[in-house]
């Protein structure tokens, strides 16, 4: 940034720079265990312990049975395995922590031990692990081998056409589950129908949920629009549980109710929910979350969404808060629960913090890496922005490619996605017309198909959606009506896909732990179990999957580079001629500066990385040399393409002993005959930002060195661009063309260069 340069400032101005970084928008809080601000060491966290009479637990984690609250009662009754508790609780926590990262200790053994551990014991064990160990243990302990991902599909207008298009888009990217919610809660039925129809476009088996009020969510599931539920929230203290309007028994009843209707269900919990709700009991995030997770397993939920959900930003404000989020995910999978591992609500304005947070999960894998990747733009996310959103989709795809890690998604091309969006909009319009819910016109449809977000659409508004939603609910429209409407209007494949989805209910196969649908088949912890016992084991990508992940858009290859260069060739032919005058000899004129050109200069390559034509560059250098009173000679070398050696070879042919080395990509050097190869006079290494004026100055300085005058070196100013990232892919390809033309012992060629001046 530009600084106020008035003298007398008493602040190091770097702090002004830091103040402007997005990071400084984040809240950071001091550790304050008395007030609930502690990741892993709460003021009132109990020591692990238990007493029992036979199968009856009479004390747990320092609380006698008479003082048990609802949560203690539920955990003691339904979580603690009486056959395991003596053995598990007697083990040293540090020893168990070592077992978690020991490739020789099987997952099954550790799961059995976890079922005999109290919440305080589980928390104490994982607190022994550092972040790397937690990620490793997570990778070993998670239930299903193949990683997956979940998307949010919402928009700021609750527009059903856009929901359908965005649901289909998310399916195309490979999300295994999609989740919607509403801006206006009464629009739930419309959102559910729209995402349901959209999710049937292109591929079958993507599971869908509509996050809504508990009772209504179950009704929407009964109508067949949704196939799973996730927002069955539990809390780690009794006070927050009651404020959440539920109890362990009501939530366990709901878990059974979902299963009784053949609908997949997981619970939700996460660090700092209790702190946000004002009932933290001076206990740490980790201990309270351990209680939540024991309770979820006790209820018989197959899985959990955890890792700091709405509370993630608050957890991240504390020292060790992000490590704690990883630790609670580890407890979830250690307990043998499916884990949709957070990475959901955006916990920082810093892109570096967001990227750092996702990495352990990306490389460890997870049942659902994000429990809500915003597949739509941030402003369209009705849950609040996610860690990753529509804006950052390609960043995530590239991270998969960088680390060769399967993050569950697959890059898709422009034409594919546009076709899918159009199809989804047409399918949804057909359903709306057939069911007399609305009659979208061509302009509405067209605006939605190409819209990046709801700012771009001319479609339904929330108020209009409310009446559509009421209609669906009151007329008791079901998924069968949607299937019939699709079929009626020729959307055969979509009708089949939706029917496939509702038929999953009959077997209940997808009710088992960590179930998703891949290639039309249910895979879960039962038939795709994660078994890791060291390198080569566990989940490994197939060659085909690796190729899918690598296939991002806009990649370079040598053919493409040469094709681009060829387009400049004819224009350049009209501006310059290079005439070979035979073998170049050492000159004797002390005013002479030799410019040594690389093998492909003007023969295969015609532009510098900054986009200057090579004829212009030659003209500028010659002008600079001549204006300073020297003479320019041009030589092409064939024995090397390296700038330093080009420069030194040129210097040794020059009567003045000063030469310029110049590569076709624009990198240049001023050299002198007595110097070591890489100890030059001036180097112009940043070709992409080197201007024509700089080349003129380069020629002038070479001439000044030749006449032994004082020289002010030319500095090509950089503003910190990552030139390596921007250009090195192309540079390496171009340079390979240069080196491919070199021959050992090739003689230097004297060139007569005629600039015809057409464009310089």
């Amino acid at each position, binding site marked *: 940034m530009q600084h106020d340069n008035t003298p007398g400032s008493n602040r190091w101005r770097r702090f002004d720079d830091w103040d402007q970084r997005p990071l400084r928008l984040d809240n950071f809080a001091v550790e304050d265990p008395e007030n609930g601000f502690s990741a892993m060491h709460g003021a009132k966290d109990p020591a692990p312990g238990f007493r029992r009479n036979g199968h009856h637990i009479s004390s747990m984690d320092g609380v006698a049975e008479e003082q048990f609250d*609802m949560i203690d009662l539920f955990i003691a*009754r*339904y*979580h603690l*395995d009486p056959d395991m508790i003596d053995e598990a609780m007697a083990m040293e926590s540090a020893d168990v922590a070592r077992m978690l990262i020991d490739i020789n200790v099987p997952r099954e053994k550790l*799961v*059995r031990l976890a079922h005999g551990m109290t919440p305080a014991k589980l928390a104490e064990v994982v607190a022994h692990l550092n972040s790397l160990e937690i990620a490793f243990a997570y990778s070993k302990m998670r239930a299903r081998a193949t990683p997956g991902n979940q998307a949010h599909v919402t928009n700021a207008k609750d527009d059903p056409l856009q929901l359908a298009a965005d649901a289909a888009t998310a399916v195309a990217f490979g999300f295994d589950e999609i989740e919607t919610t509403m801006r206006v809660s009464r629009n739930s039925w419309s959102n559910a129908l729209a995402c349901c129809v959209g999710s049937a476009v292109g591929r079958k088996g993507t599971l869908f949920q509509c996050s809504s009020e*508990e*009772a209504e969510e*179950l*009704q929407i599931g*009964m*109508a*067949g629009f949704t196939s799973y539920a996730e927002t069955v929230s539990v809390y780690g203290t*009794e006070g927050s549980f*009651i404020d959440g*309007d*539920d*109890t362990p*028994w*009501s939530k*366990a*009843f*709901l*878990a*059974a*109710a979902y*299963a*009784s*209707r*053949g609908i997949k269900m997981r619970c939700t919990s996460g660090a700092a929910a209790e702190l946000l709700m004002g009932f933290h009991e001076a206990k740490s995030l980790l201990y309270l979350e351990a209680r939540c997770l024991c309770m979820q*397993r006790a*209820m*018989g*939920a*197959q899985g959990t969404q955890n890792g700091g959900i709405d509370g993630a930003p608050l957890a991240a404000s504390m020292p060790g808060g992000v490590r704690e989020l990883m630790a609670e995910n580890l407890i979830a999978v250690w307990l*043998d629960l499916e884990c949709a591992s957070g990475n959901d609500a955006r916990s920082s304005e810093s892109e570096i913090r967001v990227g750092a947070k996702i990495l352990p999960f990306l490389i460890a894998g997870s049942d659902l890496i994000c429990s809500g990747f915003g597949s739509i733009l941030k402003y369209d996310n009705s849950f609040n922005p996610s860690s990753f959103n529509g804006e950052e989709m390609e960043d995530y795809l590239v991270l998969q490619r960088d680390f060769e890690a399967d993050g569950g998604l697959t890059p898709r091309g422009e034409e594919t996605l546009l076709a899918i969006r159009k199809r989804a909009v047409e399918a949804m319009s057909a359903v709306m017309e057939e069911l007399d819910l609305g009659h979208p016109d061509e302009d509405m449809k067209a605006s939605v198909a190409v819209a990046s977000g709801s700012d771009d659409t001319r479609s339904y508004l929330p108020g209009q959606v409310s009446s559509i939603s009421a209609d669906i609910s009151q007329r008791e429209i*079901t*998924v069968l009506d949607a*299937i*019939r409407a699709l*079929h009626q209007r020729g959307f055969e494949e979509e*009708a*089949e896909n939706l*029917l496939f989805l*509702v*038929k*999953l*209910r*009959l*077997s*209940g*196969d997808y*009710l*088992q*732990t960590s179930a998703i649908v891949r290639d039309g*088949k*249910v895979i879960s912890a*039962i*038939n795709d179990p994660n078994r890791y016992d060291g390198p080569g084991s566990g989940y490994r990508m197939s060659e085909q999957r690796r190729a899918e992940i690598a296939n991002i858009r806009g990649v370079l290859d040598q053919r493409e580079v040469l094709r681009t260069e060829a387009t400049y060739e004819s224009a350049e032919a009209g501006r310059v001629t290079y005439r070979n005058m035979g073998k170049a000899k050492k000159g004797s004129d002390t005013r002479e500066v030799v410019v040594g050109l690389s093998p492909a200069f003007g023969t295969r390559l015609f532009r510098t990385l900054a986009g200057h034509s090579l004829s212009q560059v030659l003209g500028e250098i010659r002008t600079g040399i001549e204006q300073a009173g020297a003479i320019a000679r041009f030589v092409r070398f064939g024995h090397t393409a390296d700038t330093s050696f080009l420069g030194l070879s040129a210097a040794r042919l020059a009567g003045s002993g000063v030469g310029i080395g110049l590569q076709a990509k624009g990198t240049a050097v001023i050299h002198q005959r007595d110097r070591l190869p890489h100890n030059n006079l001036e180097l112009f290494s940043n070709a992409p930002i080197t201007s024509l004026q700089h080349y003129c100055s380069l020629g002038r300085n070479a001439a000044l060195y030749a006449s032994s005058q004082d020289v002010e070196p030319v500095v090509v100013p950089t503003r910190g661009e990552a030139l390596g990232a921007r250009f090195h892919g192309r540079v390496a390809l171009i340079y390979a063309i240069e080196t491919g033309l070199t021959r050992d012992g090739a003689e230097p060629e004297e060139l007569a260069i005629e600039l015809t001046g057409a464009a310089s």
Partner: protein
Amino acid sequence: MSDRKLELDDYPLAETRPGEVRGARGLSLDDITLDAVMAGDVSMEDLRITSKALKQQAEIAQAAGRRALAANFLRAAELTGVPQEVIMATYELLRPGRATDKQVMMDAAHRLKSEFGAERMARFVEEAAYVYDRRGLFKTRY
């Protein structure tokens, strides 16, 4: 079908025994086709899971060492026959402060058992009544 307990190899049921997987009115997976849907021969009832399927999934969960999950499937198996409005009413009653005394919940539990044969779930609701009483949840919240 034999009476042996199902094992991990029996999973997924839709692939290992597609002919046996049926909806609440007896239609099999093969019966539920797009043509049947278009002909009006398929209702939402046909897309309801049966208590048998849930009991089979409970056996598979048990074989995988997931005792708590299996117990949930068995409670769910009992609820397959319970109408939606009873499910919703029971859930509502279990939320904090909805019941103002223990007896209302004991009555709901009794109904689950006597009308729908949901014995496990009835015991579960009775247990909740006992816990709510002990933790003072029988008070008006709004």
